[in-house]
């Protein structure tokens, strides 16, 4: 008679306590405390419809939380300055950006946000939001760019990668750090890229996916001075959205190669990306994201022509741990 080890090539793990992360889904282990075999049934959460944006847009930026979200900039296809604030059910108008643009990066919270870069024409312009008004910062990215990644807060921001137009390298590796007033150079990405997503903080950041094509599944982790290789996305993609922190991030949506847009959602635990059973109701790219791995928000995006208004809310489920019996 064959057994688990012969089928799967490894023995059942003995664990004193049940695992608490999504990687446990589909695994079988022996809980040595309760003396029972256990598994997790697949249901890691779901995306549901949220209130629609008032202005359809793509290549927008976002930040905040699922119940206090912020959407700003983008295009439909003309560049937009409009800002919208989400309260958990609907979007209302916020203060306009001083410079209408898409492809920038954002970070912070609804009442203290940062927007930097964007274009074309590609810029290093940086704006700060106080919950009602955007103010142009005296600080500007040293390397003007769009299609970059962003992370952090209004007073400790991080910008990395991107693109600054024909005639320059297709993808940038430059990282810059913002202190509330000025941008200074940080450590370069190991792999130059654009169309990527970011999450985390200035001292614990995450760069996810992006072009060029050979690098669409790459993740790098920042420690405040240098980037090192992280786990590999299961679905390589660009023009995706991400949210969370370095050890608990969510990546969703994106372009996986024309004509296929994805609604795939993956969760990072600091070393490994796990594909969740949850997918966006409307697969899309050039969207923005906000929130956490347990309560996220995805909004706007493409396909064209004018961009999307669709908002979706992700809510994680508690792990459905089941004890295995013979009955």
């Amino acid at each position, binding site marked *: 008679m064959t057994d688990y080890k012969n089928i799967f090539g490894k023995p059942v793990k003995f664990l004193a306590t049940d695992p608490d992360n999504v990687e446990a889904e589909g695994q079988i282990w022996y809980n040595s405390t309760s003396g029972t075999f256990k598994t997790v049934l697949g249901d890691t959460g779901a995306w549901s419809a*949220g209130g629609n944006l008032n202005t359809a847009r793509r290549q927008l930026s976002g930040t905040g939380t699922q119940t206090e979200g912020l959407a700003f900039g983008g295009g439909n296809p003309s560049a937009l300055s409009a800002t919208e604030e989400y309260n958990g059910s609907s979007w209302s108008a916020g203060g306009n950006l001083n410079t209408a643009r898409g492809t920038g990066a954002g970070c912070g919270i609804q009442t203290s946000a940062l927007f930097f870069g964007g274009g074309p024409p590609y810029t290093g312009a940086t704006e700060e939001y106080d919950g009602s008004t955007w103010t142009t910062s005296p600080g500007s990215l040293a390397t003007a760019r*769009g299609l970059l990644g962003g992370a952090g807060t209004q007073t400790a921001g991080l910008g990395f990668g991107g693109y600054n137009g024909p005639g320059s390298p297709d993808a940038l590796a430059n990282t810059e750090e913002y202190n509330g007033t000025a941008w200074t150079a940080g450590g370069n990405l190991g792999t130059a890229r654009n169309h990527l997503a970011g999450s985390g903080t200035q001292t614990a950041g995450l760069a996810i996916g992006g072009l060029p094509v050979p690098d669409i599944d790459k993740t790098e982790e920042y420690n405040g001075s240098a980037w090192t290789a992280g786990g590999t996305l299961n679905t390589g993609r660009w023009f995706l959205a991400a949210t969370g922190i370095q050890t608990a991030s969510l990546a969703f949506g994106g372009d996986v190669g024309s004509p296929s847009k994805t609604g795939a959602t993956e969760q990072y635990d600091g070393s490994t990306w796990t594909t969740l059973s949850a997918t966006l109701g409307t697969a899309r790219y050039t969207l923005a994201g906000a929130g956490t791995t347990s309560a996220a928000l995805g909004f706007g995006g493409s396909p064209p022509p004018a961009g999307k208004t669709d908002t979706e809310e992700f809510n994680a489920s508690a792990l459905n741990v089941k004890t295995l019996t013979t009955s």
Partner: protein
Amino acid sequence: MALFIYGTATNTGKGFFTAEDRRAFFLRGYPANVWVIGNNEKGALWLAEKNGVEKTKAEAQALVDAEVTAAQAAWDALPEEQKTDMNPRPTEITLP
């Protein structure tokens, strides 16, 4: 039995589809307010409750094609400097 139901319904925002809906049946949105829905009782009920209009697959595909064609025409009419890698021409979509 066919795997999917095809229909049109306008996304009214919050509550248009819920987490429970997503667990109960396949649901994927496309241009022209076309939705592809898992063919079970709850999926059919969802489309009815949203005042949706059921379509055949061919009808749904035609609606999507028309939207994509219009988007392609709009893109083709753009000034050349706006036809960049960052603003790609809309591509055909094939419904499952």
